[in-house]
């Protein structure tokens, strides 16, 4: 190979390298969801109610305990699991019971779930319970939502904002 051919071949190979780097750095275009879809994200991190109320220990009980353990209140830290149900257009979409986290089951229950659905108007019903000792769901919300293509609707729980939030 003479010098000119070598330089030409080198230029060609450098160009090919740049082309491969550049091509896969930009293409093919990635479309996460089809253009006519929307996304619902259900996400919460919420501590359920304590399973048992704190209780005053009686004098006899306290007497039986070792002196350094004699706390007047008996508080169990275990929390209730959190149940959540979602119906979409009258059909069940999601049923889940999220256990409390932590070894002593005293932490928050967390859920993260994604649902894709066609954009448009939908009937959404969300039920939420953070207390297994109650029969009914403590929180309910039913709503007609109109989701534009690509819209992300977030279902969260925030007791201070009145419970179930749709953002």
């Amino acid at each position, binding site marked *: 190979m003479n010098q000119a051919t070598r330089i030409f071949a080198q230029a060609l190979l450098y160009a090919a390298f740049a082309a491969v780097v550049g091509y*896969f750095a930009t293409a093919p275009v990635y479309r996460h969801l089809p253009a006519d879809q929307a996304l619902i994200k259900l*996400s919460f991190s919420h501590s359920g109610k304590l399973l048992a109320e704190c209780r005053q220990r009686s004098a006899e009980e306290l007497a039986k305990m070792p002196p350094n353990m004699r706390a007047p209140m008996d508080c169990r830290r275990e929390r209730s699991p959190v149940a959540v149900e979602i119906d979409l257009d009258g059909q069940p979409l999601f049923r889940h019971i999220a256990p409390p986290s932590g070894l002593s089951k005293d932490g928050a229950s967390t859920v993260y779930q994604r649902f894709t659905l066609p954009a448009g108007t939908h009937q959404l019903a969300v039920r939420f319970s953070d207390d297994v000792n109650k029969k009914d769901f403590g929180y309910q919300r039913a709503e007609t939502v109109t989701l534009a293509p690509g819209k992300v609707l977030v279902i969260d729980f925030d007791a201070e904002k009145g419970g179930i939030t749709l953002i």
Partner: protein
Amino acid sequence: MVDAAAAHTSVARLMSSISADTACGQHQLASESLGSKICRKLDHQFDTVFGAAANPWRHLGALGFLFLWIVVVSGIYVYIMFDTSVAGAYESIESLSREQPLFGGLLRSLHRYASDAFLIVTLLHLAREFLLGRYRGFRAFSWLTGVPLLWLTYAAGIGGFWLVWDQLGQFSANATAELLDAIPLFATPLTRNFLTASAVSDRMFSLFVFVHIGVPLLLLFGLWFHIQRISQADVFPARALSAGSLAALLVLSLVLPVTGQGTADMAQLPAALTFDWWYLAVHPLMYATSATTVWVLVFAITALLLALPVLPTMSRKPAQVAEPVAEVAIVSPDNCSGCRRCLDDCPYAAISMIPHPNKKIGRELAVVNADFCAACGICAGSCPSSSPFRHNETLVTGIDMPQLPVDSIRRWLDEVLADETKHGEKIIVIGCDHAVDVSAIATTEIIPLSLICTGMLPPAFVEYAIRRGAAGVLLTGCRSGGCAFRQGNQWTEDRIAGRREPHLRSNVDPSRVNIVWADRGDEAKLQIAISQFKYSLLEVSHEPSH
């Protein structure tokens, strides 16, 4: 110490390699795997275009360093101009592309493409070392320290996309959070940080910056570690290769400048993303399968790579051919003067110096770390005690290979050059077990010897052969940049040319010495070179002597 009996066995082995029955001489050659064959073919194609010094396949690790430095330098400028806040990040980067397209914008594009190129050459470097079977034994250290670098490379790269905080960054950050949440590491799921616009905090953003600067620093440290067992590692590509690679990335940055894809909006999914598949392919993979699948895949690949050095070999060698024992270099304290030449020449940093236990204060002694020793013999070639002109019956040098002591090479030369009636006729060809098979060219005049590495030949042996009656000495071995032991051919060339100690003495007629680097597949090239050498030697011998 090398005992005389062992030396005799070695001579017997060497003698067998020149017998007409080459089949028994063949067994010394390192067998060539399919992977090595593929690499060799590619190397040779690219050698013709780039030359060995600037051949990208031969210098993938060095190219990695080059791209990393480009990333660091361009990254520093982009960072100076960067606004570390959720609200300001996108605009601060976009204005670079808009307002200084030929400087800040160019650096921004260069930063991205050099990162992509870094990942690509790293993966190719891994593939090449794998194909060459370079993950076992003394190379296990380099291999095992390479594996975590892959994790760091991806972590640094993926984190970079978040900083732009455009729709691609948003998508990647959220997808990464979903991936990380699949292994319950955090009490509160990470995904909650990306639910709504108000959830994304400046504090989170400072964490991004921390990751994107901290991880590359770890990577640099890891790289330093990675080349600890390599002396004078090839970390700077040849000028032509550096210039060509930088030019390629610059042109790419000008033709296809990187731009942001609209500021992040948590309430909206990005429609269609211009996607960097080099780093981000893991996200579509996760959505096409599941986070668990991705983790299983990632951990399985990592485990496999880490296990490779200890997995049983798959080579299909005939059972009757025993694997040659790779015995490491051994120092003879009585013959070591502490000159440090072996320390300088060892390609794998396997030698260190200690105070000499039985010589006077201040003298040093070379010691070999057996775990790091590649058993290449290059140190034997560098030791001044390896002089064949010493008058001892058994030549014991300072540092030697038990499986092929320098004494056996001297004995071999004595034997093949014993016939005084043939003086001035024979050409000694010294090759190596990893390159072109020199035993195939044996004739009554061409007397080949294959060493572990050509670099193990002390240059004084060239002079010795000529003084003992050889017409000339031709040295061959792996092509430039392709030495199986990294530096054997380079040191040989430098020693013969007098650029490196120990050097070939200047009283040796240079026309009687020839160097022709030839890999397997270069048999014809070697044959031609030998014929030419033969003719040129004839001319020399007809010239009146001075």
